[in-house]
């Protein structure tokens, strides 16, 4: 029933990106477990890197789905990813060290049912619909789990819901100073939601190139990671938070420079105007 209007020409096939994104994201999120083994919080930034890996895969999954012209806009796919992902992610945090794996499995089940509903009950009839919504839900869950791990140093339920505040040098337990209790999860939700839908929304069109879009996805991911690392200062010790901030700043700068390079490569022509023109005279 639908016409595929844009084919992916050249570049890395989608299944390769899918496999690489899933494995990289899971491994990087699990690397934050080094926190528990070493007794520090210095390895929290791996969570953010895992989220970036999932976001790169996510932008390509959105491209894969939206190239069929779903008619509802690219952002809706990102919202769907996080709406279903957050449910799987929060449920999975109860399973301790198995949380990322449980999140992937549960998100796949939720995504499959949502895919069946949209493809069959709502009569969308898009060949990649079910697979794409499964991927979307997994990506949403992994990005949120990565940001959660980066902000708190853990992906388990109790560290995510309880923190501590210090009043006059005393450290008191508090549920408000936590990832979920402080509603930082809502910020992570939107930071991920914007980062996942922006790359394809910005790069779509006849001169779409895969490497440019994926670089933009990584750039958006690192940009979100900067915000997450700033918020993590409230929850983890300051040295670990500064390490996260430096990693995300370096990653963002590198991907930004690369993205500008790729944009200039793909552009028909460009004029290097200055952002603020010099005032002449007066």
């Amino acid at each position, binding site marked *: 029933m639908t016409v595929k209007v844009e084919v992916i020409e050249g570049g890395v096939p989608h299944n390769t990106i899918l496999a690489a994104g899933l494995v990289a994201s899971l491994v990087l999120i699990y690397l934050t477990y080094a926190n528990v083994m070493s007794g520090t919080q210095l390895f929290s930034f791996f969570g953010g890197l895992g989220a970036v890996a999932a976001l790169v895969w996510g932008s390509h999954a959105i491209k894969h789905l939206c190239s069929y012209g779903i008619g*509802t806009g690219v952002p809706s796919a990102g919202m769907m990813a996080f709406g279903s992902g957050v449910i799987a992610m929060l*449920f999975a945090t109860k399973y301790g060290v198995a949380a990322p794996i449980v999140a992937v499995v549960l998100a796949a089940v939720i995504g499959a049912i*949502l895919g069946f509903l*949209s493809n069959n009950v709502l009569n*969308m009839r898009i060949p990649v619909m079910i697979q794409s919504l499964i991927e979307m839900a997994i990506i949403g869950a992994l990005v949120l789990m990565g940001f959660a791990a980066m902000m708190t140093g853990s992906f388990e339920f109790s560290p995510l819901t309880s923190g501590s505040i210090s009043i006059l040098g005393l450290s008191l337990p508090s549920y408000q100073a936590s990832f979920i209790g402080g509603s930082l999860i809502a910020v992570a939700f939107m930071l991920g939601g914007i980062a996942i839908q922006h790359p394809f*929304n910005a790069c779509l069109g006849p001169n779409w190139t895969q490497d440019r879009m994926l670089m933009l996805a990584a750039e958006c991911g690192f940009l979100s990671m900067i915000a997450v690392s700033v918020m993590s200062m409230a929850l983890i010790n300051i040295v670990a938070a500064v390490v996260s901030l430096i990693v995300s700043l370096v990653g963002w700068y590198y991907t930004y420079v690369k993205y500008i390079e790729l944009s200039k490569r793909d552009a028909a022509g460009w004029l290097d105007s200055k952002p603020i023109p010099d005032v002449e005279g007066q």
Partner: protein
Amino acid sequence: MSAVGAKPQAGGAMDVPATIAGIILLLVIIGATYFLVGPGLMFMALIGIIIGGLAIAFGVHFVPVGGAPAAMGQAPGIATGVAMLAAGAGLAGLFGGAWAAEQGLIVAVVTGAVGGGLLMAITCMFVTFIYVYGMGIPCASGKVAKDPITGDTQTEFKSQGTEGHGLPFVSYVGGVIGGLLGGGGGTLIYIMLLDVYKEALPGMMGALPAQIMPVAVSMAGIFAVGMFLVNAVLTAYNITGTIEGPHDPKFKRFPRALVASAVASALCGMVAILIVAM
């Protein structure tokens, strides 16, 4: 609204076997929840969540979503996508309703509905200002010859080669009704989950009820947002992106969306309840 390609030609027809499979899935999920948590607060919460999801899905059909063609003055409606509009109305309603959560279910749901409706009314009003005074286009529907509410004729105001433009009165009213239903439905989901978490979290986390309040509020809030977005996007898939309002022929497709959103809400609601029940 994506600029990519043609819209899918998904017809208005219902796929009967798939719909029956969907209803069976819904009953299985409800039955599984009953089996796992038994009758009582948690099971009633699931029913409330399903009703909230249905209200959201039905409400989104009323909202005049124009998308990119509306921004160019070539189709009626508000010039953005369903996800943005529904999220705006739903979240405005949710914030209003959450504020009144302590005053009981009815007051909170009505407050949420008013919040959502108010946001849509203000949005529609300023959209009309911009269309009429900014873009200089009259409001005319392309789907009906006469406005079903005011009886004004539309065709002489419609430019050639467009599907109508601006925001006709019936679309405005539809937008407000959609906001009311969406805001009320979102708030109902939030209140139901909040009740469950307030009841179950103190025992689960070994803390006083007053201490876990932030966690309960935050979890219920983020789940309500998630379910709202899932329901809104499923409905957007049903209307394939754009709709003019309750007078649009696409409005008649709503039974499909009700089945889909009942199943989706039941599924998400079951997972959200099982976090504290298992």
